[in-house]
């Protein structure tokens, strides 16, 4: 399918990335490359226990080390800071409840790894060595170590000022589930336990703060995914005006949610710089990066259908263990999970009960998928188990139950309004792209062999463009465009790039409007003093929200330039077209944009006659498919767009060792109109790799005392290039009817479908050895355990 807009020259093309050569040549400077000479380096003393009170902290030995300039405990830091406000407000009935907002522990600790003291030295080596000399005495208290404990009546309360450990609950209903299950011919029950995993970005966290007492101004440079949110949090915690704080986010070595606002070190580093009146830098080590866990949860589900495979009911009860709740919004991910059900399927009766609990573990860090990947995993596992029970091919069962394209737009039980799609077409495309029939033959031929093949399908619905009321910032993005006197075009925008290349897509949109090449557009991002307030990088919004904002601003500028051109060339302004750097009149006469710009600035009374100067425009975009008025069930709709994808994975399973090798991956993806298909494709491949990793290998493990065991890449296994086959990608395009450019958002989606497909593929290879309970990741030890328990080996 094509749309009128994609017929334009630049939308739908894949020009080279604006900064591609710089990245390739290693000329890009990341945060830690920007630490100024003379900065003090921060090393943290972290709690070795999960819960306890701090009896004493002795900093003397650390302070005596040569090169150590200062050391502080939490109480000293607190004299200069207030608690950091949460980026995401608690939904009712818990609105306004306190979170763990101090950047360094005061009097008590709540998780292993919580900072209890800071040491600052002229070199990171000295700082770390001295931090080891800080002695802290704790009175250890009984900790809450898992969700079951958290919910027991006798559990200690993790957070001060709370009456229970429940962080939030969500209850989503459609139809009459009990009646549907009672009447159903077939009911399948299952359970999925998701073990903790993490993002593992190439570049760990880094913050550099420079307080300028003279101008009463603080600059914090670092790995900020949400610069404006962080500016607000830092300014609030430091009792400064927002305008006194500048947050800069340089090139980033991967974000994936992990670098969203609210890390305690953001405020900590800023406060230390202000206290000491010196630049202060913190560079996280890999071990601490690995403490940023998430995803730990258990789902118990059941699904009902008629004998011919018409799904009639779905129910999921889950409990997620989000650790301690701090200013970062990782804990909200399980609350998104529930809103995605029943994904692409037409199921009349749905009941979701999600419970989020706090335990004495580090706070969750956000991750790509943002909880949506888990909903899709659970849904797809349920559908696959049902297919086995019904003896219906899993792809065929999905075809019988996905919504037909004419049913869209349609509301989910959660109130979200799914925009557009052609799910049956995606399944058909996947069938041929993957070679489904050929893989089935190979799979069937290997059934019962020690080395056997399994194939799995995973459908994915990924709500995008999150715009939750109360969150900072929320449902809009702003772009400012300006043309210099010599005709250079600069776009300043509140969305940022985590290294994904979205600046190139934004430049394409602007260049398309102005008749320029994308490399003629300078895109400014990630600097709160230079760009409009924006969300930064989240929920695939760079092009989804930033794109139309940039488009609107560029059209405003073009309108001004058209008046100028008609002033010089004559003819009607509406007849001026723009191409190849020129404004062209109906009679073919033309004027370069640089000539116009120079004319505007040197001969404004003639060239710019009738134009509201300057040659600038600022516009915002607000999505239309968001609803804040509650529906009949009291629910609002906070996601505007709904990309989806269909994935198939073939694996080879060694029943003698439980080892899994991925043989083939195919993905059909629909994010509506693609501004830059190459960027979409590569982001999608990255997401698929993350999904496969989460499904097969990636797991954070802790010792019974809460200490992290998997603290390096030899123990936390990411997929390497040689672990994955070529990922076959197919694109569809059903433009969103709610979006001015037909976009639905790209970048995040792809994790869920790959995760579900690979887990289903392993279950398929296990065949009768698979159990109703699935533990993710499905590692070789877990697989071999299932095979041996089933007694088939």
């Amino acid at each position, binding site marked *: 399918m094509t749309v009128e807009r994609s017929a334009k020259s630049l939308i739908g093309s894949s020009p080279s990335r604006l900064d591609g050569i710089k990245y390739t040549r290693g000329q890009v400077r990341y945060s830690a490359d920007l630490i100024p000479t003379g900065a003090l380096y921060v090393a943290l003393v972290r709690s070795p226990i999960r819960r306890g009170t701090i009896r004493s902290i002795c900093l003397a030995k650390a302070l005596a080390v040569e090169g150590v300039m200062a050391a502080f405990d939490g109480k000293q830091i607190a004299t200069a800071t207030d608690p950091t406000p949460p980026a995401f407000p608690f939904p009712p009935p818990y609105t306004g409840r306190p979170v763990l907002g101090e950047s360094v522990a005061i009097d008590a600790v709540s998780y292993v790894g919580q900072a209890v003291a800071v040491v600052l030295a002229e070199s990171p080596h000295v700082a770390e060595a001295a931090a080891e000399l800080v002695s802290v005495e704790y009175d250890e208290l009984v900790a809450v170590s898992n969700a079951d404990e958290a919910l027991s009546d006798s559990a200690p309360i993790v957070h001060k000022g709370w009456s229970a450990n429940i962080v939030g609950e969500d209850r989503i209903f459609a139809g009459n589930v009990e009646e549907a299950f009672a009447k159903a011919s077939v009911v399948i029950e299952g359970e999925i336990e998701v073990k903790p995993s993490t993002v593992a970005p190439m570049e760990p966290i880094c913050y550099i703060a420079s307080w300028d007492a003279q101008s009463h101004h603080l600059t914090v440079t670092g790995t900020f995914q949400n610069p404006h949110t962080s500016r607000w949090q830092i300014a609030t915690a430091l009792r400064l005006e927002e305008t006194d704080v500048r947050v800069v986010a340089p090139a980033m070595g991967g974000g994936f949610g992990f670098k969203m606002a609210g890390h305690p070190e953001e405020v900590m580093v800023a406060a230390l710089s202000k206290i000491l009146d010196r630049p202060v830098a913190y560079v996280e*080590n890999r*071990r601490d990066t690995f403490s940023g866990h998430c995803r730990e949860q258990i789902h118990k589900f059941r699904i009902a259908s008629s004998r011919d495979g018409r799904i009639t009911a779905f129910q999921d009860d889950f409990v997620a263990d989000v650790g301690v709740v701090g200013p970062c919004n990782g804990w909200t991910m399980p609350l998104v999970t529930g809103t995605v059900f029943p994904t692409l399927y037409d199921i009349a009766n749905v009941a979701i009960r999600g419970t989020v609990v706090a335990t004495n573990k580090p706070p969750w860090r956000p991750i790509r998928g943002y909880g949506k990947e888990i909903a899709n995993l659970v849904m797809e596992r349920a559908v696959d188990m049902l297919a086995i029970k019904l003896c219906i091919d899993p792809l065929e069962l999905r075809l019988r139950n996905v919504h037909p394209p004419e049913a869209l737009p349609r509301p989910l039980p959660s109130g979200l309004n799914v925009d557009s799609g052609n799910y049956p077409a995606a399944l058909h495309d996947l069938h041929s792209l993957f070679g489904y029939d050929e893989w089935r033959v190979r799979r069937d031929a290997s059934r019962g062999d020690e080395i056997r093949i399994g194939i799995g399908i995973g459908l994915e619905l990924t709500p995008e463009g999150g715009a939750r009321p109360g969150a900072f910032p929320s449902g809009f993005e702003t772009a400012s465009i300006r043309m210099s006197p010599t005709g250079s075009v600069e776009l300043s925008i509140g969305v940022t790039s985590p290294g994904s290349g979205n600046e190139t897509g934004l430049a394409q949109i602007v260049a398309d409007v102005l008749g320029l090449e994308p490399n003629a557009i300078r895109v400014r991002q990630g600097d709160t003093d230079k760009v409009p307030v924006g969300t930064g990088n989240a929920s695939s919004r760079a092009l989804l929200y930033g794109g139309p904002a940039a488009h609107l601003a560029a059209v405003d500028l073009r309108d001004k330039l058209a008046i100028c051109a008609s002033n010089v060339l004559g003819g009607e302004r509406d007849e001026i077209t723009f191409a190849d750097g020129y404004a062209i009149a109906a009679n073919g006469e033309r004027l370069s944009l640089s000539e116009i710009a120079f004319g505007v600035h040197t001969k404004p009374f003639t060239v710019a006659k009738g134009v509201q100067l300057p040659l600038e425009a600022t516009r915002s975009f607000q999505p239309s498919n968001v609803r804040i008025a509650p529906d009949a069930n009291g629910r609002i709709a906070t996601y505007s767009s709904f990309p989806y994808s269909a994935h198939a994975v073939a694996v080879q399973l060694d029943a*003698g060792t*439980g080892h899994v090798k991925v043989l083939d991956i195919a993905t059909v993806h629909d994010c509506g109109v693609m501004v830059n298909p190459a960027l979409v494709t590569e982001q999608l491949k990255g997401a698929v790799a993350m999904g496969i990793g989460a499904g097969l290998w990636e797991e954070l493990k802790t010792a019974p005392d809460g200490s992290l065991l*998997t603290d*390096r890449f*030899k123990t936390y296994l990411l997929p390497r290039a040689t*672990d994955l086959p070529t990922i076959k990608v197919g694109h569809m395009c059903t433009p969103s009817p709610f979006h001015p450019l037909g976009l639905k958002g790209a970048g995040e989606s792809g994790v869920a479908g790959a995760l579900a497909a690979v887990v289903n593929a392993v279950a398929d290879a296990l065949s009768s050895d698979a159990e109703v309970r699935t533990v993710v990741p499905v590692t*070789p*030890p877990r697989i071999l355990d299932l095979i041996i328990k089933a007694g088939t080996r």
Partner: protein
Amino acid sequence: MIRKEIRFVMPRTMEEAVLILDEVGPDGRVLGGGSVLVTAMSAGLGAPKVVIDPAKLGLDQIDEHADSVSIGARTTYAALLKSEIISERLPLLRAMVEEVTGGPGLWNLATVGGSCCYANPASDAPACLTALNAQFHLASTGGTRVVSAKNFFKGAFVTDRAPNEMLSQIQIPFGQAVPRTAYFKLKHSASSWPIVTAACQLVEVSGEKHLCLAMGGLSARPVFAEWRSKKPFSEKHAEAFALEATSQVSEAWADELADATYRLRASKTVALRVFKRVLGDDKCNQN
């Protein structure tokens, strides 16, 4: 982040090297390729006062002798891969080196000697060199002593090397008949440590067939088993041999990637597979 200042020395002679090592005792470390030592120091694990880099001692040579090959302690995996002597005389070692995890960045740096001295149960070299009956030459101010692989690997991260000793070379015997060999490495994914490895070799010595198996990752030290017979071994023996070898293990190794139960379970499959590869359709074995 390396937290404390270290003294980094590059002695020009072995005598100088062992003298320094003797002086500093347990505070000294000998650098192999650095893939373990430097990484550990950067993570703040272990803080040696003196690091001795033997780069100038010429310990990167591979030499063929009448009935053995000597490999300098600082020989990298890349050098082993390139060596025709290794390919011709020690095909089992060659097969092991081909399976070493990492890319050129690691292969050009990491050394087999360093790996042996580290003695991580979940690594390739210890079991393979045990199967090959390698001899470890340990130099100190008191001279050089030679320790066989079976005695060198004493436990998890523990070898017979004393703090004042330095590995100079590894000597590996070979026979005139071409051995039949198989190396199998089980690991979860490309970046994973080995979970279970098996190095198997069948050679004929004076009309007698010697079959040996060494397994890594299964126990704190390599598991070794050997069978000798005037008659050819048959693939039928594989299952019994696998059971015999793995049943030696009373306490299996466990780390972050796999527990003891899994290693024991998987080891039977791994052992069986190398036996089948070595014993199956083997002309050397049949005649």
